[in-house]
């Protein structure tokens, strides 16, 4: 392998990163991989084989322009010389265990497409499963930052291409022809004389008695027949027939339903159970134990767990924010704000300012925190939807007092994540409960727990000061101040997780500021641009929520862009277009303006809003139309926030090289609904040390009566040959556009989001003792 470096001139701007991965990279499309020793064909590639994505961290004005979070995540994968494998089976199928978590974003489908492409195998013959925790992968088993396709695009294709090469070699012997003359298509190798042999027949022959290194050349993008074509999800059939299994659907022997009774204040801890005997005697109940997070009950059915949780009489220690409410937490944030830097004393300069508050929001998915744990004296096995399974395994082993290797952590397909499953709160809790009960448990959080105690997007303020003279913007300063965003999952394993867990939040702040710095960017020519992050207060259960800082930071910035345009007498679209310095962003902006008919005449009380975003190696823009007229805002729907309705969204995205356009469109549509919720309806209210929202009729995520009747997603052809991220890219530009449209339609300058947060509560808060509501009994009266 020492003879290889002369092929690497194209990478010389990235010498450090190339040292390890470069050993396997022989040219632009030529790579080295392995045929593994074994009974059937197993082809492997180093997972560190990502494209070196960008130049080194520059000293220039905005790091995210040249080296963004995805470069950090991708480069963090490089040193792990560990292999991913594509196996070809005798039934003619290929299988691959993806070291990432499928949570709805579609990566099992896009991964199967990559394999189908290089292997010349029909998509339905590729099976992608989720790999359990593989500690040897170190940094390379974290699902986050919309990084999966960016970091796995090359290595997965290399493994599949090596498999095809081995199949062709084996076919040459069987068919008695030379490899160059053979053609592989749809899982069949055909010789010029028409004789053929299937992959299934070749699988064992193509296997190798020993592991050997082989070179392979990937397809040129011009040859792609699968990548870039719209495909339906590989798990859709399972989903629509009810066969798709989530954690609570798994049948693990002896793992009975288990739930936890939690404190009336956030993160309160149990002191004493006053009626343990009585609850143990309730129908179906098998165990009642105290753990650090509450009192766990195990029963024959979840219904009996609910009864038992509600019956428990527990004395509690106060939680981490006892007595606090929205106002006191906001006051704390205000105290943590640093003064905006003073602007040059130019007497002719005019100033535009904004100061916007973003309240707590929940990233609770439909499938609540759930996990199955079977802890024995000498070993443990856990099943859960986990985006950082390695650190989960390490932390669980630590909590149980077992060696890491004695803990098996299985990654289960999750019913949504939105950032929630970067953490493993349910898995850790289930393991502790199982250990204490000495029985396998199937833990499920009640919806009320998931909303109130689960992780949240932290409250934040964003202050902006911009100055201008005539037609020039001189300065643009944004100071974002937030309750701490918890990144203690590190980069998915315990070394960086420990670094993030240094005392006094110092370690976490380093992570937070790094992620902020690597994701945030103002792509306008606005003179001296600075964006800073200050975080304080680590008492809440927080974490990344879909798109982390970007929706809030971008919404505040784009509102100020609108205000600047207004102050300078310019059209909001033309102003953006003239100041954008990035061609890809300008293209998506022009696309939505044209497709969405920017500037069309709208009735009073309705308006358009337009905004851009740049992240995940792509660019996006949204043009929305909103209806804020009373007859729309005041629609009568029970237990609902109707509010202003976004009536139309035109969204354009340049996501680089797109693997599955239909999946990309789906992710944008979902992100649009998230953005509308962030702007108009959904937030958590803190009162007396506890969040009030305990139901989907309290936490008002977008519903059918809020969703836009017209959504048009345009995937813009990209000049970039590199894949971008999709899972989060729909949120920021749409939130900003809805905020701008709302401001324009109402003639106001909003100072907080969501816009309904300070309205009288649209629901009657559920009690905190007992902590979960009883199920109703009137279901048969409500049929339709």
């Amino acid at each position, binding site marked *: 392998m020492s003879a290889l470096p002369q092929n690497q001139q194209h990478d010389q701007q990235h010498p450090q990163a190339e040292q390890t991965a470069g050993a396997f990279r022989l040219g632009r499309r030529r790579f080295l991989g392995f045929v593994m020793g074994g009974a059937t064909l197993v082809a492997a590639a180093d997972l560190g084989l990502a494209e070196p994505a960008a130049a080194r961290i520059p000293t220039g004005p905005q790091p995210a322009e040249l080296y963004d979070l995805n470069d950090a995540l991708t480069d963090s994968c490089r040193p792990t010389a560990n292999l991913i494998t594509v196996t070809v089976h005798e039934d003619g199928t290929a299988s691959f265990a993806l070291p990432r978590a499928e949570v709805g*974003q579609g990566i099992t489908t896009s991964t199967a497409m990559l394999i189908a492409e290089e292997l010349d195998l029909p998509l339905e013959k590729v099976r992608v499963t989720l790999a359990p925790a593989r500690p040897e992968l170190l940094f390379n088993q974290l699902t986050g930052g919309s990084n999966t396709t960016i970091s796995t695009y090359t290595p997965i294709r290399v493994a599949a291409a090596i498999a095809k090469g081995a199949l062709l070699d084996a076919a040459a012997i069987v068919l008695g022809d030379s490899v160059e003359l053979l053609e592989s298509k749809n899982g069949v190798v055909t010789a010029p004389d028409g004789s053929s042999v299937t992959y299934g027949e070749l699988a064992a022959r193509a296997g190798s008695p020993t592991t050997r290194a082989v070179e392979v050349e990937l397809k040129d993008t011009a040859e792609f027949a699968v990548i870039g074509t719209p495909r339906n999800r590989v798990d859709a059939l399972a989903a629509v027939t009810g066969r798709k299994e989530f954690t609570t659907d798994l049948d693990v022997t002896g793992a009975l339903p288990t739930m936890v009774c939690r404190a009336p204040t956030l993160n309160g801890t149990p002191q004493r159970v006053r009626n343990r005997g009585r609850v143990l005697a309730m129908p179906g109940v098998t165990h009642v134990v105290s753990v650090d997070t509450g009192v766990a009950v195990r029963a024959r059915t979840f219904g009996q767990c609910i009864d038992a949780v509600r019956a428990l009489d527990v004395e509690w220690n106060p939680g981490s924010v006892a007595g606090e409410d929205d106002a006191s937490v906001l006051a704390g944030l205000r105290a943590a704000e640093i003064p905006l830097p003073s602007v040059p004393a130019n007497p002719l300069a005019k100033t535009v300012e904004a100061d916007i508050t973003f309240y707590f929001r929940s990233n609770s998915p439909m499938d609540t925190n759930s996990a199955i744990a079977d802890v024995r004296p000498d070993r443990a096995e856990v099943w859960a939807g986990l985006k950082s399974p390695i650190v989960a395994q390490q932390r669980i082993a630590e909590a149980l007092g077992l060696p890491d290797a004695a803990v098996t952590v299985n990654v289960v397909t999750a019913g949504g994540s939105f950032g929630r499953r970067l953490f493993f709160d349910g898995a850790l809790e289930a393991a502790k409960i199982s250990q204490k009960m000495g029985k396998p448990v199937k833990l499920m959080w009640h919806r009320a727990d998931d909303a109130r105690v689960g992780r949240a997007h932290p409250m934040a303020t964003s202050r902006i000061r911009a100055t201008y003279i005539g037609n020039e913007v001189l300065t643009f300063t944004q100071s974002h101040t937030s309750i701490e965003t918890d990144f203690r999952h590190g980069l998915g394993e315990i070394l960086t997780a420990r670094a993030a867990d240094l005392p006094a939040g110092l370690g976490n702040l380093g992570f937070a500021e790094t992620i902020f710095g690597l994701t945030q960017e103002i792509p306008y020519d606005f003179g001296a641009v600075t964006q800073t992050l200050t975080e304080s207060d680590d008492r809440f259960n927080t974490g990344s929520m879909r798109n982390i800082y970007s929706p809030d930071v971008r919404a505040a910035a784009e509102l100020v862009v609108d205000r600047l345009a207004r102050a300078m007498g310019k059209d909001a679209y033309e102003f953006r277009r003239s100041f954008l310095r990035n061609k890809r962003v300008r293209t998506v902006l022009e696309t939505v303006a044209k497709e969405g008919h920017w500037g069309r005449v709208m009735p009073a009380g309705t308006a358009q809003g337009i905004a851009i975003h740049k992240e995940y190696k792509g660019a996006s823009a949204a043009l929305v139309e909103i209806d804020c007229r009373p007859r729309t805002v005041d629609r009568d729907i029970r237990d609902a926030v109707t509010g202003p309705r976004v009536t139309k969204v035109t969204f354009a995205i340049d996501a680089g090289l797109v693997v599955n356009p239909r999946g990309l469109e789906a992710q944008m549509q979902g992100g649009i609904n998230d953005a509308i919720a962030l702007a108009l309806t959904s937030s958590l209210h803190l009162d007396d040390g506890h969040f009030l929202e305990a139901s989907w009729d309290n936490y008002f995520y977008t519903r059918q009566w809020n969703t836009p009747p017209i959504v048009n997603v345009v995937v813009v052809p990209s000049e970039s040959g590199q894949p971008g991220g999709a899972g989060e890219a729909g949120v920021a530009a749409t939130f900003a556009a809805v905020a701008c449209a709302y401001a324009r339609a109402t003639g106001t300058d909003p100072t907080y989001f969501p816009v309904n947060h300070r309205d009288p509560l649209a629901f009657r808060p559920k009690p905190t003792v007992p902590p979960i509501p009883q199920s109703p009994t009137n279901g048969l009266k409500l049929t339709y």
Partner: protein
Amino acid sequence: MPRQTFVLNGKTVSVNVADDVRLLWVIRDLLGVTGPKYGCGINVCKACTSHINGKAFNPCAVPVGQLDPTDTVTTIEGLPKEVPAGERGEHGLHPMQEAWLNRDVPQCGYCQPGQIMAAVALVKKVRREGREVTEADLDTIRNICRCGTYTRIREAIREGAEQM
């Protein structure tokens, strides 16, 4: 302990459990039929939407003791057999499920069994009222999808209704 008997997806089932246990847990925890999902337990999220005697309902809000032995409960697993074989689509499924596949609706998929069961009942309901599904009807659907697949759900319901 009382013996509970009802018809589930075309078969009579019997199980020993107290009257007040909600049907959702009987179906999921005791009978192992997992298509209907838990999302709230208080008849809000509608992830467990199934059919009883042909109408949509939420088993999280029905004590099993309220069922009669002749009550017919259909979950997503039994939906295809609610239409004659000739009306099933290329995957052998109910036209609404086929429309869901054709529009590639699911993302995480957790809420989709409930969405489909609700959609079928909605179409039948408006047909009983002598009309077709309107935008206003679609706005009344309460089933949550936290992935935000609402756009494709609306497309799929219109498409599925045409085949029903």
